[in-house]
């Protein structure tokens, strides 16, 4: 499966066929999820309506880590197997992950003002997430700095793998340090500590966000493949003109 996809043309046709379906289901689930959040899910007895920020905040945080892991796996694919699509996948995942990280930080800070009384707190979870955003931005900067796609891919892979140490730090920061941010309440040993009337909309939104992310990732990969084709064709054309002039 993975080896078959090494052929960019085959990947293009498969991704092109999948993309409308993934996007369609994503939109549908997002509509259902948002409906549930606004009209079905109860307001929290302490937080009131601000609890609804959580339905955006938590999935965005999960996907920020999800896309970093995708990038790290793709980086292994680039360095170890020299898979031709691995660095395309890495490059497409970086801006999506950075966007989810930013959404997570912004929604968290909007929730923090009424609940904690401050937009920002130098707490382990918040700080490690901010570092995550900085690492994402560094990766994007390095992609832009090196022009040749293959060299850029290998350089970014090394940076991505070094930065992967931050993923477990973000995940377990609430367990290792005594933080203001509440500890994990969904993915934990002993089951979720959140009532099903809130858990179900949260999971629906999480799946919807994941599909939105996957759709964006596929579209980004297709764009990147096309961009590389244009680049190669431009170089070939320039060489042809050069040869004719000589």
């Amino acid at each position: 499966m993975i080896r078959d996809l090494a052929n960019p043309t085959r990947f293009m046709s498969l991704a092109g066929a999948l993309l409308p379906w993934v996007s369609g289901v994503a939109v549908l689930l997002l509509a259902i999820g948002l409906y549930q959040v606004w009209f079905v899910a109860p307001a929290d007895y302490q937080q009131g309506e601000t609890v609804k920020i959580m339905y955006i905040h938590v999935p965005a945080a999960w996907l920020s880590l999800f896309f970093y892991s995708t990038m790290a796996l793709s980086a292994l694919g680039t360095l170890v197997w020299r898979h031709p699509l691995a660095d395309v996948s890495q490059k497409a995942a970086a801006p999506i992950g950075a966007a989810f990280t930013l959404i997570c930080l912004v929604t968290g800070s909007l929730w923090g003002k009424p609940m904690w009384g401050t937009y920002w707190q130098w707490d382990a979870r918040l700080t490690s997430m901010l570092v995550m955003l900085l690492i994402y931005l560094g990766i994007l900067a390095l992609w832009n700095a090196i022009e040749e796609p293959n060299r850029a891919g290998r350089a970014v892979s090394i940076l991505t793998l070094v930065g992967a140490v931050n993923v477990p730090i973000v995940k377990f920061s609430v367990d290792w340090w005594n933080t203001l941010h509440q500890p994990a309440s969904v993915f934990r040993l002993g089951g979720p500590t959140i009532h099903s009337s809130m858990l179900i909309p949260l999971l629906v939104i999480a799946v919807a966000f994941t599909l939105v992310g996957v759709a964006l990732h596929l579209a980004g990969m297709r764009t990147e493949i096309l961009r590389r084709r244009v680049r190669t064709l431009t170089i070939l054309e320039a060489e042809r003109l050069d040869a004719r002039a000589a």
Partner: protein
Amino acid sequence: MRSFRALLIRDLKLAARVGGSGMMGLVFFLAIVTLIPFALGPDLNLLSRIGPAILWIAALLATLIGLDRLFQADEEDGSLDLLRLAPVPMEIVVLAKVLAHWLTTGLPLALAAPFFGLLVALSPEAMLAMVVTLLVGTPALTFIGAIGAALTASLRRGGLILAILVLPFMIPTLIFGVAAANAAVGGTVPFETPFLILAALSLIAAVIGTFGAAAALRAGE
């Protein structure tokens, strides 16, 4: 081993005779330490309380200043290509160059810390703690920076992007460096706890930095 020593001596000679990046780092360090009291106001109590933090930030920035030339100069004049062809593992090359770089920037910074500590009214114990923590902590900064330097060796304006790439990774070193320096002058945590973590960070950075920078240099050919 012979090539390691030859490379180390070559880099030390280059640092002593051309440009003198070690001196520049110290001057930059002094400039930052001088600048901060202008921003905060010359309140000696406040300065001595945040002195370790000021010195650590200044040391971090001073380390960063020279890093972009670590591999770039060799990339430009072609000696890096010769080193790639040489029968020496790239890891040894990186280790020699980083060690030379640390001896000319990190070590002088650590040794000069008591003098700069006078400017921010540090107590003698705090000065000693600064020397020890900088001595143990700055190798981590140099090794982490080496990865960034290797990744940006062939870029024309590598300096700025180098800073963006490596600063997030230097945060843990900064946290535990300042924590250890503060713990030495009092506080609830014993000095050893953050200090040992700082030493561990340096050792981990030495491993990851050496292999990461070597991989980046090989990938960059």
